[in-house]
């Protein structure tokens, strides 16, 4: 378990200052992060804007769903060529509806999977945390590779006015 500390702030501004301080103190991006109980406008804490590939998931899912649907609808009709109401055996316009639905379904499911994966969930060792974060407090969490930098991280947090610092 790598060492990590969590500084707690009650107001967003000092937390943002702390993030800046950490940047200046030479912590590389990704080793520190901000935890909030509610979304803030992007870059409000000067955090690095997370990159994501979410938009690929629905496209991928849609393709799978569409292929499945084409296969299912056409094969099931051709396998049992029964004339109903003088309609063609391969009734494309009826198939289209099923294809559409299955495409959308696969697209949605893929998107949801994508959202979960892209937000790095499920995450069964959430690491250091404080329940007050969901009460409006702001947490700045730093993870270390080497113990030596703990001190100056703490100093940065304190300078920014952290009300409490937790270790884990």
């Amino acid at each position, binding site marked *: 378990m790598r060492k990590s500390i969590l500084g707690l702030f009650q107001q967003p501004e000092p937390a*943002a200052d702390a993030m*800046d301080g950490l940047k200046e103190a030479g912590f590389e991006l990704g080793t520190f992060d901000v935890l909030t109980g509610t979304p*803030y*406008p992007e870059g409000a*804490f*000067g955090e690095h804007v997370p990159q994501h590939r979410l938009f690929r998931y629905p496209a991928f899912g849609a393709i799978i769903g569409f292929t499945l649907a084409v296969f299912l609808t056409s094969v099931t009709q051709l396998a049992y060529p029964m004339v109903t109401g*003088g309609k063609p055996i391969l009734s494309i316009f009826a198939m*289209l*509806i099923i294809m559409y639905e299955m495409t959308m379904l696969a697209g949605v499911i893929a998107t949801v999977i994508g959202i979960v994966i892209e937000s790095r969930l499920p995450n069964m060792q959430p690491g250091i945390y404080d329940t007050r974060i969901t009460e409006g407090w702001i947490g700045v969490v730093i993870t270390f590779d080497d113990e030596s930098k703990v001190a100056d991280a703490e100093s940065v947090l304190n300078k920014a006015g952290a009300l409490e610092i937790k270790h884990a």
Partner: protein
Amino acid sequence: MASQAVAHEAEHHAPPPNVDADVVTRELIATTTGASGRFKAWTWGLGILSVVGIVALILKFIDQGDDSTKWGYVAALVSFLLSVTGGAPMVAMAPVMAKANWVRPITRIAALFSFAGVATIIMLIPLVAILPPLVTEGARRRTVWYMAPDYSPHFWTTLSLVLLLITGIALFYSAALPDFASMRDHSTGWRQRLGKRLARGWVGTDVQWRTLRMRIGMFGSFYFLILVFVNFLVSTDFGQSMVPGWRDAIFPMYHTVSGFQAGVAGVVIALYFSRKYMKLEKYIHLDAFWSLGRLLFALTLLWIYFFYSSFIVFWYGRSENDIATLDLLIKGPMIYAFFAGMILLWFVPWWILIWNKVRRGTAMMVVGSFVILIGLLIDRIRTFVPAWSVPGDQIHQKWLKVIPETVWPDIFDILIMAGGISLVAFIVMMMTRVIPVLSVWQVQEFNLLAKPIRYMKGHATLVAKPD
């Protein structure tokens, strides 16, 4: 395209520049004067084309005025022009409806289209003369005018189109008052005199502003209702009721929706050119293109939805109506037009506009809009030409027995269509000489309400939402 889109994206992320009020007024008033040589050339060209088109219309009337089956293309053109010129001003009402901020600067361009409604009416005149009455040879054809007088469609369509034109201009004028005032104050020559006369002593008191907003809301809603009504009449009386047994309850709505689609496309094109050639980048933000793009995308999907909703019902049904309608309008004489329309009106725009990068840019947006306009014209031809090609002695039968042959456009039709379309462009371009293409006061309002701010360490825009 990609690199350019990226560039646009960067531009998009940049907060809208805040221009001082006086600069806005001066620069926008200046756009009315000092047309470039290219602009002049284009206006002349379009003007000549329109005259040729009108002459062709008269000649065609003299030549073929007695044969209704030859007028399908003119009917299609009327429907097309109605769609574009009638649909575009709807964009001017978005703020009334949704209090959207992005639309404020561009309402003027949209409203200018309503003047081009003149073109629609000009093209309609011979058509009204030729449209067969409800009762021919003692038999009454199926219309929405069940037992009404024989010439009701002729009367009401003309009347409502004129009403639409008047309401559109009223909508334009009620929103233009403050700009006429600023022309009175900052312009010169005949424009100043015009402003003086039309500003009607506008000084911008609180009362005047309140009445202005009220008027916009009022005329806006009127305009919407009349537009829907006109679409209903044109699509049924000039299309559906010309075919025995064509009974498609969704067709008026289909017509209206594709009309909005064309209107938005027209606005996008006008925006693009005025932005590019009038140097209005400062005022026409990419945000507007982005929102219009999403609107256009939604309308494109709506088109295919409406089409399929009617198609699947016909396909399942086996009655004479269903089969005849499919044979005439889809499988029949216009099958190529059908596929072309399907591709240009739905597939291509859908595939273009689905990309956020495209919607953030301008170039592909305008391409998509042109595609949609062409597609719509073809789709109108697909629906109206076969409808009119049904011989006059059959239109009051119960069901369509024989499917008529394909009708190809003759030289008149081509000239008329070219003329009608260029007349619209011509009118809009001329109007930009009379009044700023962007509404000055709304640009001011936009700058007032939308402020770029620094939110803590990040950038954001603060958009005020007054009631």
